[in-house]
């Protein structure tokens, strides 16, 4: 049974849920903006903008705390059931995941000072498109949450493959670039990390989508067939941290 949005007999419950939805939309919007700003700072080598992203991450952390508090409180005081319960659990988890997305954006911003300008590094040309898609996934996963739209959530998780493909492609060209330009190896490594951050953002958007799917349908999202990824072996074991 999906939430049809009809009102609760106890109206204050609807107030809590609506407030939470508003905060999730806000934290989502802020982290999406953080990605965009970080990428713009990177392209323009704008140190001020980069510093802004780092500073604004505190707001995202604050929001996460407030969401968690209100979710916790709502679960304790209203004892929600069925899709209400699923939605609140999803809210709790989503706020954590979105906060991590903010951290990745911050991490990108922090690398801006050490990269002189990406334009001269060939492999960097793919980064803007990659980040556009990653941001789009973040936006759509939260849109799916707002609309309780399991189909859109499923679509987000499928589209994450595009981000993964970008990463594979950037990974290869950065390695090649490093071999050909050993003096730029430091900057190239930073670029690789940035690509990795974007790839992780895509994964996190997928996590959000999975929770939206569960909240809406009451069952886990079907597994996506990820296929072979040549860089899998080179990745650090990821524990979401």
């Amino acid at each position, binding site marked *: 049974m999906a939430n049809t949005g009809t009102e*609760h007999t106890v109206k204050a419950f609807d107030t809590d849920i609506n407030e939470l939805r508003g905060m999730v939309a806000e934290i989502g919007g802020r982290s999406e903006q953080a990605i965009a700003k970080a990428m713009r700072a990177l392209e323009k080598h704008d140190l001020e903008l980069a510093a802004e992203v780092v500073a604004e991450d505190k707001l995202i952390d604050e929001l996460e705390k407030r969401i968690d508090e209100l979710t916790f409180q709502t679960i304790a005081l209203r004892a929600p*059931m069925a899709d209400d319960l699923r939605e609140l659990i999803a809210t709790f988890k989503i706020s954590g995941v979105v906060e991590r997305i903010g951290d990745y954006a911050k991490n990108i911003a922090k690398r801006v000072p050490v990269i002189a300008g990406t334009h001269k590094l060939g492999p960097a040309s793919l980064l803007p498109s990659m980040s556009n898609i990653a941001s789009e996934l973040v936006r759509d996963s939260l849109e799916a949450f707002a609309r309780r739209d399991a189909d859109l959530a499923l679509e987000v998780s499928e589209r994450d493959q595009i981000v993964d493909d970008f990463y594979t492609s950037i990974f290869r060209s950065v390695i090649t670039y490093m071999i050909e330009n050993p003096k730029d190896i430091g900057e190239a490594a930073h670029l690789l990390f940035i690509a990795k951050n974007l790839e992780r953002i895509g994964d996190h958007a997928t996590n959000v989508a999975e929770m939206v799917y569960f909240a809406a349908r009451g069952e886990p999202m079907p597994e996506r067939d990820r296929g072979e990824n040549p860089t899998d072996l080179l990745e650090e074991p990821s524990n979401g941290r």
Partner: protein
Amino acid sequence: MTELIDNASSSESPIMTETAPPAISAGDGPLKMTTRNVDVFYGEKQAINGVSIDVTMDNVTAFIGPSGCGKSTFLRCLNRMNDTIPIAKVSGEITLEGEDIYAPSMDVVQLRARVGMVFQKPNPFPKSIYDNIAYGPRIHGLASTKDELDNIVETSLQRAGLWGEVSDRLQDSGTALSGGQQQRLCIARAIAVDPEVILMDEPCSALDPIATAKIEELIHELRGKYAIVIVTHNMQQAARVSQRTAFFHLGTLVEYGVTSDIFTNPTQEKTRDYITGRYG
């Protein structure tokens, strides 16, 4: 069984807008009681419409639903307590261990010992604690000596978690106990005649949270020893104490299934609206 009433679908009956759900099995565990297509009328008014539920030995079964939906009426069918209401007519099939409990050969007094009942308001006899427990075993001839009877009284009080609180004052009146203790006394009284099934109709609705928690704990401990069916208007309680939940609405069984499924992912919109607090 009493006769079926044919002209049941009179237009003023709100119940008949629903088609009766198919026989629903509770899943695992040995079956203790089965009910098939049970209808109950109070005079012309239909209170239960085509309910089919299986009760297993291993699970606590909870009946939930808005007040007036027929939970108590249906519960009372399980030990023929509705026989005491002259205008009540029950039809359909109800079995205990495969035996039709409405068969003419069924001894109703015996049946009510096998299927004991605990009511909303604790109703100890105005007698000593000891006699409250000993009464049933005495009339059912379960003890031949004083020692045997003492033994039943002690075991029953122990199983009901009351022994420690009353062992030194068994001759005090049962009505002098606190509400929660009285309710556990009533449970001990039901246990004393060695029942197979215990029916509880909102057993905690007159109790404070601590007394309620003690009864819920007791239900956990009794699970498996007896088949337990509990009616509760408190959904959190159903969620806490039961493994199977049946949701009733206007005399029909809307959904019956594993409690955790019912409370996390019900299949029927009516169930969902009720348990999430969107009812009426």
